[in-house]
């Protein structure tokens, strides 16, 4: 179980390979890996976005993400879980968040990764400020709900 806050761009596939190589020992027990990658779009709320700054609350971020992973581990039969989240200046196409869940059976992996992602969206203290094409800045007001297209 690990939570990492990154101040620089990360390649989720390299992070996953490194984490699996160093942290996952019961590989023969793993039947299901569910992964989610959130990346920065160049379009939001009808406007082109050329960059964003992600502020967070150091310490509380890690504490809340740890609690979310523990809650997931308690609720489903998981082998391991991982969250990586960017902060600082981010540009379109760059990954913002990676959620990974390893389990024996796919139901647990699917349920837990979605739970972790929704919990992160509603509880982890990150705030996005978008930079628009006309150099205007605006704070994103509220995350959308993740259980329907929006």
């Amino acid at each position, binding site marked *: 179980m690990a939570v990492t806050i990154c101040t620089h761009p990360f390649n989720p596939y390299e992070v996953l390979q490194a984490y699996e190589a160093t942290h996952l020992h019961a590989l023969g027990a793993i039947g299901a890996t569910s992964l989610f990658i*959130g990346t920065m779009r160049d379009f939001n709320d009808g406007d082109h976005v050329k960059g964003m700054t*992600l*502020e*967070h*609350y150091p*310490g*509380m971020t890690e*504490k*809340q993400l740890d609690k979310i992973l523990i809650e997931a581990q308690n609720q489903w039969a998981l082998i391991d879980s991982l969250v990586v*989240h960017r902060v600082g200046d981010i540009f379109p196409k760059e990954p*913002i*968040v990676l959620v990974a869940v390893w389990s024996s059976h796919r139901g647990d992996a699917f349920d837990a990764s979605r739970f972790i*992602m929704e919990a*992160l*969206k*509603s*509880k*982890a*203290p*990150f*705030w*996005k*400020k978008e930079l628009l094409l006309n150099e205007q800045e605006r*704070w*994103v*007001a*509220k*995350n959308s709900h993740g259980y329907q297209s929006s």
Partner: protein
Amino acid sequence: MSIKVHYFASLKESIGRSKDELIFTEPLTVYDVWQQANPDKDRPNQILAAVNMDYADWDNPVSDGDVVAFFPPVTGG
């Protein structure tokens, strides 16, 4: 007794500072902390509060050495 107060994101910008330190003698709630730190500002809409890095209700008590934070709805992920 003393309490640290942190502000984040758009709230930090509208208040114009990122932290306060309050010295007090009477027991306080989270709401009291807001009022004493911002006597000229009503409790802003939708602002969330945390005490020692856990979410807290505005009527929760705070103790000597606590860290209180106020911030808008989170938008990570």
